[in-house]
């Protein structure tokens, strides 16, 4: 008995003439993600991708787990391959589903007949197969409204497929199909979630992080690297840029009014980020800001930060509450790492009373009192890059 994984496309099924580009990208992402699990053949037809294992040891539950995290997929399931012949479908259903059916109470059968040349119509398939399964598994009763198990028969081009579990996919668009952007990754709860959300829209993520030793520790950087690793489950490979930021932070402290520390720091971060973004062909910046969450994230503060930006800044969390953000962080398994208690550069030299509604001209004046440019250039030059690939 042969088992495969059926992957149903999400949004890309609706694309027009460029659908193939999206499909190819998705196939490439899937192949790369399951490569280490064994040999597989991936083929696509009728808005469905078929993952067929090419060796006996392939672990399909792990394939499902990994593919379930890839963007661009609406649903997926493991299925048993049958001949397009009702007797074979019935026999294989009994064998393939005996585990699940022998301990279930209620079930129903649904059929999808994509190949209209198949002699039986969908309701007929349901009735016939339902009858056979009822006879074989006396513990079962039919419940069409709320069954414990839904047995699905799909009659497609070359084969028929039987399965009993439909798993929801991650949705969105294949990563890479929307270009690349630079994520400002602090190590907190929000920024990994922001990266995940943009990856969901097909954006290939690069990440930038600022370190200020001795004010921040190696462990803080390590934590951010671990977050990057976690994100690769969803985002694929990530180029990680680590910017030495101590001198700039010390210069701010020495030369600027305390109330503007954070806002000037953020402007400098944005400046550095877009210079590195340009080098890495990133078309936008991504931050985890949410309006009003902290003093530097009021609308006035965001306006002052954005004033230095020459490329778009995406803030996918802008309208979300902390609880909603945490919910996603838990789902994508970054919450626990994010809440490890290491100081990051955003909390170094925090002003006691930051300006909640800074005025751009005041901020610019404060910043212009010192020539940051040589330090910015030095920081960009000394930035180190590491690549995180899927599977660490």
């Amino acid at each position: 008995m042969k088992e495969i994984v059926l992957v149903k496309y999400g949004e890309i099924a609706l694309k027009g003439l460029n659908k193939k580009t999206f499909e190819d990208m998705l196939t490439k992402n899937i192949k790369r993600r399951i490569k280490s699990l064994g040999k597989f053949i991936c083929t696509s037809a009728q808005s469905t991708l078929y993952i067929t294992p090419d060796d006996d040891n392939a672990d399909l539950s792990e394939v499902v787990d990994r593919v379930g995290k890839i963007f661009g997929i609406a649903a997926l399931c493991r299925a048993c391959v049958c001949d397009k012949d009702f007797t074979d479908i019935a026999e294989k259903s009994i064998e393939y589903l005996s585990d699940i059916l022998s301990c279930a109470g209620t079930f129903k059968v649904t059929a999808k007949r994509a190949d209209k040349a198949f002699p039986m119509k969908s309701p007929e398939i349901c009735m016939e197969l339902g009858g056979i399964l009822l006879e074989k598994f006396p513990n079962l009763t039919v419940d069409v409204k709320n069954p414990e198990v839904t047995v699905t028969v799909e009659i497609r081009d070359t084969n028929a497929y039987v399965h009993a579990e439909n798993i929801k996919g991650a949705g969105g668009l294949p990563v890479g199909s929307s270009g690349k952007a630079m994520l400002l990754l602090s190590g907190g709860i929000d920024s990994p979630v922001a990266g995940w959300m943009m990856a969901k829209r097909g954006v290939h993520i690069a990440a930038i992080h600022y370190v200020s030793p001795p004010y921040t520790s190696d462990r803080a950087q390590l934590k951010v690297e671990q977050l990057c690793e976690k994100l690769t489950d969803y985002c694929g490979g990530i180029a990680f840029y680590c910017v030495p930021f101590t001198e700039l932070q010390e210069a701010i402290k020495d030369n600027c009014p305390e109330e503007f520390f954070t806002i000037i720091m953020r402007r400098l971060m944005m400046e550095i980020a877009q210079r590195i973004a340009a080098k890495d062909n990133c078309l936008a910046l991504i931050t985890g800001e949410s309006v009003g969450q902290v003093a530097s994230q009021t609308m006035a503060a965001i306006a002052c930060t954005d004033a230095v930006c020459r490329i778009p800044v995406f803030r996918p969390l802008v309208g979300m509450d902390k609880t909603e953000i945490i919910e996603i962080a838990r789902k994508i398994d970054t919450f626990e790492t994010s809440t490890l208690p290491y100081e990051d550069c955003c909390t170094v030299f925090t002003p006691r009373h930051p300006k909640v509604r800074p005025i751009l001209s005041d901020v610019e004046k404060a910043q212009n009192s010192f020539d940051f440019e040589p330090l910015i250039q030095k920081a960009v030059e000394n930035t180190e890059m590491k690549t995180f690939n899927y599977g660490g």
Partner: protein
Amino acid sequence: MSVYLDNAATTKPCEEAVAAALNAMTENFGNPSSLHRAGLNAQLIVDKARKVIADSIGAERDTIYFTSGATESNNLALRGASSAYGRKRRKIVISSVEHASVEETVADLESKGFEVVRVAPREDGRLYAADFVRECDENTCLLSMMLVNNETGYILPVKETFSFVKRKFPDIITHCDCVQGYMKLPLRVQALNADLISLSGHKIHAVKGVGVLYIKKGIRVLPIVTGGKQEKGIRSGTESVPLIAAFGAAVEKLAPTIQERYESVSRLKQYLLEKISAVDGIAVNSPDDGSPYVVNISAEGKRSEIMLHFLEQKEIYVSSGSACSKGQQSGVLGQFGIKGKRADSAVRISMTAETKADELDAFAEALHEGMEKIRG
């Protein structure tokens, strides 16, 4: 030539494990909890081992908790999960062939008010998923089964049982003691459907004193040791960096060769069975489809301990199993239908991929001699 055929009891540490432990004792001896670089370096060693072990069972790094060994892992799993989930649901289901570290722990919980059901093999000596499913109900908090029986090598139907039970009662916590299966059979947490998994270092050519409990994300286990909140508070106490490093190094070495070692040990088992089939009065207690690493036999009329000491004189080391100690019959062999004199005369041979055919020759020859010389 000494012939060590007691690898289910413990294994010889591999060079890689010894080197890793030595490095963590001489170079990177910091406390992983210290904030300075020496501490961080020690933490990185622990993290690396955690990752290697997590990868080897298809799990995430932060689901791996280090303990002092599989006995502690089993205690932590059973006591910790039953205190988290057993306030209202007071029933625990286990197989009747578990290792003492599970059986005794559950017996203790039984004395504290839990209802314990021990599912026994049927007459054919095999356990059936349906028998476990039948015993599970809304009142059950915990189901524990070992993957491979340490005395006979019998492989329990864990995968089927757990997936049945999880489908029917998703709230039941499933625990699998994988000590005799880890690095010997393919083991993936996803496929096994286990919430908790116990692993041991010294059974896989690492060192004694280190084990792992895998705790699936979202599953709560209350600590049985409290203190400095190491291992996320689940297992306090400064991490034993050298032993953990050794564990990681051994897994790194063995993980890529599970399949090929399985095949080579299967050939060894076949060879051994052929060899001893020529000896009169030998009965094989291990099932054909069991783990090839463990072969349990009975030498008719010769008490296990005497045979063991006879072989020992020839520097051949086997085990009377946990089978029969000081005249007491093995409870577990009896569960498999191996009783009376046959259980009294049970001998366990346990191999590794490094076991040589000529070592098995020496064993078979000595066994033959023992059958002739030992007075019943």
